[in-house]
């Protein structure tokens, strides 16, 4: 570096080829480090065997009116509830203005299958499984932090921010449903 040109301007030495090599090497080094780090982080993401369970079929035939079952989808518990006429009426009668996360009963179910309520069974607060047919709104009550859901699985009272989440699902026939 100690050539006459840099000695004349010690404050701002002109960029040399060596400076360029330093910067270029550092830049490539950063990219390489990132390239090595990413797979080490990405291995934490859900693996192929977890993702492979993404779609299930479930037969609703055995569930009587007023009965609920909890099934497993992608490792998550899922409520399947065969609602009574009274519960459907009750859910439909609620004005949207009373809801923290406004959704109509129609938006919570499929047309022609209003009696079936299919929802992920984890409270939207911190993920506990709420207890069925309890709480102040004839729906679900989460014992962990006291969230109340109504007969359409909508949040009515307590710390949970959202209604119980609906998984993507479709009716293949009147009694067979595909989740995922």
């Amino acid at each position: 570096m100690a050539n006459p040109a840099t000695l004349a301007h010690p404050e701002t030495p002109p960029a040399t080829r060596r400076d360029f090599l330093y910067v270029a090497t550092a830049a490539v080094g950063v990219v390489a480090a990132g390239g090595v780090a990413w797979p080490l982080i990405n291995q934490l993401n859900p693996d192929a065997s977890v993702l492979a369970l993404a779609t299930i079929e479930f037969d609703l035939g055995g569930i009587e009116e007023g009965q609920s079952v909890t099934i497993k989808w992608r490792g998550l518990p899922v409520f399947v509830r065969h609602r009574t006429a009274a519960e459907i009426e009750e859910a439909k009668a609620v004005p949207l203005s009373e809801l923290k996360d406004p959704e109509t009963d129609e938006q919570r179910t499929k047309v022609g299958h209003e009696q079936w309520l299919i929802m992920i069974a984890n409270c939207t607060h911190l993920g506990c499984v709420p207890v069925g047919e309890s709480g102040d709104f004839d729906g679900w009550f989460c014992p962990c932090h006291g969230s109340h859901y109504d007969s359409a699985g909508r949040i009515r009272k307590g710390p949970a921010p959202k209604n119980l989440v609906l998984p993507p699902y479709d009716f293949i026939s009147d009694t067979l449903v595909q989740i995922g």
Partner: protein
Amino acid sequence: MASHESNYTPGTAIEKWVDDRLPIIRWSKTHLMDFPTPKNLNFWWTFGAILVMCLAIQIITGVVLAMHYTPHVSLAFDSVEHIRRDVNGGRIIQAVHATGASMFFFALYVHMFRGLYFGSYKAPREILWILGVLIFALVMATAFMGYVLPWGQMSFWAATVITNILGAVPVVGEPILQLLRGGFAVDNATLNRFFSLHYLLPFVVAAVVALHIWALHVPGNNNPIGVEVKSSRDTLSFHPYYTMKDAFFMVLFLIPFAWFVFFAPDILGHPDNYIQANSQVTPTHIVPEWYFLPFYAILRAIDFNILFIDSKLGGVIFFAGSILILFVVPWLDTSKVRSGTFRPVFKWFFWLFVLNFLALTYLGAAPAEGVYVLLSKIATAYYFLYFLVILPLLGRLETPRPLPTSISESVLAHH
């Protein structure tokens, strides 16, 4: 490291030979034996050594337990029972490890409250304090992941609820949650990585403890009157004076420890954790271990929206804030006087803070309903007001009592 000179003279030819190549005996003599220590340290200062002992106990018992434990969802629960029933001495080793976590946190809290009362975080010990808070955070993470390993109902739902906290982060919350759990729910991938990290983190803690002690040995110990060491008349050598004092209080500490291990190994746990994890059913009353209760109470206290921040995220912000705020305590406390002993007004607020912390512990276990909800909010408010309003203002408003001129003067005044 510190400013004092080593007075080590190798006694034999072998010691001389070693000293020229790796002066480890010289270093040990300087830092573990001759280290000048204020002569007025009371028993609250023995908790540092007690904590080193706790970490050692956890690492030794933990390494042994890992020889018999199986981190798989269908085997983990049974392997812990296998340790307790079949492994030679396993009943005691497992109890020491599980109870040891509680004893570790008890000592940690005492050590931290001692620092808060005697102003041990003030200049020039800010980095020492920050490293301590970092150790606290790492120990919390380690304890949480360790609690998941037996794969009982409480383990599983603690893992679900606590990882869900991260899900509250806007936009990236859900991807981070899946990255952390390795699935859409807490499952085998989660258990495996928690086991791996639970084995790793104690050694990280040990490394930060080494830095913590290094940072202690640069300015030396704070002391109950908070006046810096001025001459050799103020100090005693660490060995034998404080090695003996520390050893004595370690033995006292081991008495309740042994009582728990031998007579009540499960008293600090929850019966629900003897039911194997079931992702379909949540126990009706889930509570964290006692040492997380104050922070859990703060998390639950925020059940209302703050402007555009919903209650869930708000709770998470206050929960994280309650620990992060400790990092900046050295700059929040404006008083030039270190020791609470000479601060007549501070004392009241400090003991109220301790009482408030105990109240938060109680409220964290209480059901989230009725009067407990309001009390949790009041206690959370005081927790933050203490750091953000009281400490900054007291330094300006309070008139401290006159300080002794030196440690030796203060010691002699009592005799």
